[in-house]
């Protein structure tokens, strides 16, 4: 049993995956229910956090750093997404003067 204890400190892999899934689900629920554009994008970032936990837990479990390297790429994509999405949100806000996603149900000129 001591052998296994060195393999995964603090919680089993299943517990980390459950927490990862819970964060992902909360982010999903938030993305579907919130109407504020910025908070919706924050919820996608929350889903990213769930993925990060799963990646690193698997990385620790298999003792293989590729999972952690992929977190760096997730960070890159998240940063790019934040820059573009927020630029778009500012653009949309200046046009309609609201952050309500419902104001953009008909996307056309």
């Amino acid at each position: 049993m001591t052998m296994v204890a060195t393999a995964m400190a603090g919680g089993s892999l299943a517990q980390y995956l459950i927490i990862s899934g819970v964060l992902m689900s909360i982010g999903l629920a938030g993305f579907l229910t919130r109407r504020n554009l910025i908070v919706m994008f924050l919820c996608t970032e929350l889903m990213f956090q769930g993925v990060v936990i799963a990646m690193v837990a698997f990385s620790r479990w298999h003792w293989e750093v590729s999972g952690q390297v992929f977190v760096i790429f997730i960070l890159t994509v998240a940063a790019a997404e934040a820059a573009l999405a927020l630029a778009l949100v500012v653009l949309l806000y200046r046009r309609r003067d609201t952050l309500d996603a419902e104001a953009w149900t008909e996307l056309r000129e």
Partner: protein
Amino acid sequence: MPTILPYIATAASAIGLLLVLASTQRVFRLIGSAVGLAGLAWLLWLASSLGDGIGDVATEVFFLVFAALAVTSAVRMVSGVKPVYSALFFVLVIMAVCGMLVVLEAFFIAFSLVIVYAGAILITYMFVLMLAQQASDTEHESEIPQYDRAPRDPVSGVIVAAIFMSIIVTAVFPAISQMTPASAADRAQSQADLLARLPRQWASSVDGAPEDVVWPKTTQEAMGAIKVGVDGLVFQGVTSSGQTFNAPIDRLPGNTQHVGWSLVASFPASLELAGVILLMAMFGAVVLARRQVEHADEALAASVGDTHAGFEDDSPEAGL
């Protein structure tokens, strides 16, 4: 263990989340958070009973504390009516996640998450939130816009999230008992593998080695030289005069070296691609922002009849 139990726990958590999301009354929100946390604790307890890998008590306690902090902050972030508070609670989520990563010994990722997410991305979100905030005085509930106070169809949203969580439970629970974690020998091999490729790391990794030691040249040699001792890894070396010695390995290549080596050795193309993505995102943001300034200028110039007024009004946004 009956297989239905994890789904009941998931449903309980979902009901709790729904109460917190949809209700405006404090009592229901408190009941919802209690039900949700109980469901989550049950789910975690069910997960702990299958598969091994429970660490010592201290790390388990840290994991549970960080997990509870992450989930409660996430729920408050999703259910809060003030976007700025949501962003701040997201910072708390990141901190809790980073705590879990530290428990998992992913130190480099943990600290880069704090710097990049909590330090950079969230600041961008805060800037935009401040820019787009309509009422600067949001002390009163009534001044918060309607779209922040009333969620859109919380029942369907939570049902979708619960189905998603059930799929994860279905995938995780049966599979986990068939997986075996990396053994101590695997870890030693991984360390030796990296040490063999970083020859200059040897001298600073092995404590108390003689001056004329012959360091291993190949991965095979390095793996043969590293043994799993009673209290950690031991380096079995040979000096140039043919004497053998044992020395403990104190400063092995750490997590940062592992990640860095894997990044440049295993994923060089992805690294270049990540750079291109960031560059493209920067170009995209600049193009979008420039278009916005021109558009606002035209509108202002048309309404005021003075071209200079638009420039003065828009200078803060242009800087973004």
